[in-house]
Every structure is written in structure tokens, then in C-alpha cells.
């Protein structure tokens, strides 16, 4: 699911630190609200925790058949509401079904009870861990809210003498990437400029005419990045006219000039 869409639910600053969990209220009958609430389940573990809470069951003893059924209902609702369902949700669905079928299998009577591995164990640990981090995220949220309420002194003249930025390794990397991109852009422009020969322009115009029967001369000129290129295009068109490869049409005075591939002479329209 797109994480950016989730930000709108937390984008509003709260006057008092509130719990991020409050957003995880059950969906209501109102469809648009339903959609917003569903978007909050940004991962399959969130949806599972919500269902466990809603069904008032214990993480330590999940009624897997019931929860799986509910999970699939929500998954279907999400798909119907056209919320992009990320692959993780489908993986979890498969896991749940697998656990469910595993639990339906008859037990091997030769294995003592305490050695039987509960197929739900791994999921239980994952959920507990996930819940701990959700609580930690909530703590961070509250801390950040309080901290954002403190302000440091205004800029001093001394700061302005030293208008520099501090950096981390990531900034160093980002800056390097930007330098490389900048260089690439410059190189591309230079290459383009050097290679604008008339022969290539002729090929380009012919290719355009293959794609569509008519091409507006204006469009061809607008492909030029420099004045020099405009001149080359102009020469290329003249050359093509001379070769009788194309025809230029103008249906009205000052109207658009249209380039047409020449098949046979046609005198019904004025030619330039």
C-alpha cells in the first residue's frame, strides 16, 4: 500500500499528544470513511491485530479459522474499494490458510503433547513483536510532539557569517548523485547539439511521416533545442522537397504548413 496516503491521517498536528492507535477504529457503514479506515492497515500485521482486538480474542490463542475468515473478508473489501492491496497481504492470507489447514490435521498420537509445535507460534511472536514496535512508535510520536513545541533562539548575526550546512554520509551520497546527474544532462545536451546533421534530420522527418501520414511543420521545428537545429531542420525539409519525397500543404493563408509524404503528384491543393 502506498505509505504516502497514510501520512494524511497523521499530518494534522495535535494540540495534545494523542495516541496514533486512535486512528485504528473499526470501519463504519459510511463507505468513504470505511475506505479511509482501511487505508490505515498499512501492513497485514496491522489488519490481524485489529481483527484480534475486534473479535476480543487473545494473541496467545488465536482462533485461526475465525480470524482467517475475517481476514479474507477485509481483504476482499479492500480489493472492492480499489485500495491497492500489497503483496504482503496476500502472503499473509496464504500463511493463515496454511496454519488453519495444519491445525485441522489429526495429531500424531505417538508425539507427546508438550513436543507438539503449535503452528501459530511463529505468527504469535511476529504479532507480539509488531505490537511492541507500534507502542514504541506511539512513544516516539508523543516525544516528537512535545519536542516540536520547543524553539531555539533566533538566528544571530554570527550564524549569518557562517551560512553552511552540516552533512551526513547520506547527504554526501545524494550530492554526489546530483553532481553525476547534472553532468549527464550537460553531456546529453552537448551530444545532441553535435550530432544534429541534416542527414539525420531527414531520417527523422521520414520516420515521423511513417508513423503518421501528415506532420505539422510547426511540430517538427518545435523539436529543435537550438536555433542551429532549426536551420538544419529547415534545410532538411527543403532537401526533401527537392528530392520530391515530401509535399508541403497549406490549406489557408497563414495556416499551418503540413508535411505529407509524396506518392504521386496531386494538383488539387496549392503547393509551395
Amino acid at each position: 500500500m502506498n505509505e504516502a496516503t497514510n501520512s494524511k491521517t497523521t499530518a494534522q498536528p495535535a494540540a495534545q499528544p494523542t495516541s496514533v492507535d486512535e486512528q485504528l477504529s473499526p470501519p463504519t457503514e459510511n463507505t468513504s470513511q470505511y475506505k479511509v479506515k482501511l487505508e490505515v492497515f498499512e501492513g497485514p500485521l496491522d489488519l490481524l491485530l485489529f481483527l484480534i482486538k475486534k473479535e476480543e480474542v487473545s494473541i496467545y490463542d488465536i482462533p485461526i479459522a475465525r480470524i482467517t475468515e475475517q481476514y479474507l473478508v477485509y481483504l476482499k473489501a479492500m480489493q472492492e474499494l480499489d485500495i491497492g492491496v500489497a503483496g504482503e497481504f496476500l502472503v499473509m492470507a496464504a500463511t493463515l490458510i496454511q496454519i488453519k489447514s495444519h491445525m485441522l490435521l489429526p495429531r500424531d498420537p505417538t508425539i507427546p503433547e508438550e513436543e507438539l509445535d503449535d503452528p501459530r507460534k511463529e505468527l504469535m511472536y511476529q504479532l507480539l513483536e509488531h505490537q511492541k514496535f507500534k507502542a514504541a512508535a506511539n512513544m516516539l510520536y508523543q516525544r516528537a510532539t512535545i519536542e516540536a513545541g520547543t524553539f531555539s533562539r533566533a538566528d544571530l548575526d554570527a550564524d549569518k557569517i557562517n551560512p553552511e550546512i552540516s552533512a551526513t554520509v547520506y547527504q554526501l551520497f545524494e550530492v554526489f548523485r546530483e553532481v553525476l546527474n547534472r553532468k549527464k544532462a550537460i553531456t546529453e545536451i552537448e551530444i545532441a547539439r553535435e550530432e544534429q546533421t541534416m542527414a539525420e534530420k531527414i531520417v527523422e522527418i521520414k520516420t515521423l511521416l511513417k508513423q503518421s501520414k501528415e506532420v505539422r511543420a510547426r511540430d517538427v521545428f518545435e523539436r529543435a533545442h537550438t536555433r542551429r537545429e532549426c536551420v538544419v531542420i529547415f534545410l532538411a525539409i527543403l532537401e526533401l522537397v527537392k528530392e520530391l519525397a515530401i509535399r508541403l500543404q497549406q490549406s489557408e493563408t497563414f495556416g499551418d504548413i503540413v508535411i505529407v509524404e509524396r506518392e504521386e503528384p496531386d494538383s488539387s491543393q496549392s503547393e509551395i
Partner: protein
Amino acid sequence: MTIEELKPIIEALVFVSEEPIPIKQITSLLEGENIDDIKTACDELTQEFNARNSGLEMRLLAGGYRISTRPELNEYVRRYLKAQPTARLSLAALETLAVIAYKQPITIPEILEIRGKSSTSAIKTLLDRRLIVPRGHKPVVGRPMLYGTSKEFLIQFGLNDVSELPSLEDFEDLVTN
């Protein structure tokens, strides 16, 4: 110098410093002074600031001292500065940050495993906001990048050190109750 003489100097230095100023830097600026005296002066100054009915507070943050306005007054200050509160982190970014804060240094696949979902855009946000930093490569196959929290993280979350974070086990009690 006596502690009473050191205090105003330290106060001025903390005020001027744009970032929280580490005690080590204060010490190097006050060369020749007794380090224990400097520490005592810092402690006393912090206490005095906070005991006073003041609009300001002095705190130890990200390993350094800082003077700032009190959070209770944020409404007035914001009104004056017409300060837009910085965009809040999304739930995804906060959860990812929590995982990184507690499990650092950690790789992206390890984060994915804990969160049960892809976290790349959250990680990009956290990197752009300088809350996390790359911490070299993990010496395993593929040498994946390790991530940890930054100094900016400590400042924005009001911590002197990551060890000040409540332990993850504390949340377990909260969760199971």
C-alpha cells in the same frame, strides 16, 4: 575560576551555539579550567534554569546543552513566528523509525522481516529528514547497508542518547495487559 564565574560564560556559550554544545567543546573553550568545576557549573545552571519561573529551559540533548523555549508555551511562540509545524511523520515512517531505533544497526531486509511489509519509501523519508544515517555495510553476503539513528533523531525526539529510550520490554507489559 570559581563555579559562579564559570556559569555565566557557559550560559553565553550555550545560547550562542546553534546545535546543542557538548561539554567537551565547552571544556576545550575554557582551557585550563577544572573539568569537574565545569560539569558542576553546567548542572547547576540547568537546575537554576528549570527551577526559575522561566519561559526558557536548558537541557542535555544529543550529548550537548541547549537552551530553548518551554513546550508549554509553544502556542504563543508559534503564533508569533507563524511557524508551520513540521510535517508529521506517517505511521509507516514512525514504525520504521522505532524498529531502527531499537534494533540499530539494522538492514532493510531485517526491517522488512519485523514489520512484515516493505519499508523502502519510509526509509527514504527518514534519510531525507536526516533522522537515520547509513552505518556501513553488514559483513554478510551481498553486504547490505546498515542503518542507525542520527544526532538529528536525538534532537527531534528530545533524547540525550538512544539509551534513554524506554526498553522494548516495557512495551511488552503494556501490550499484554
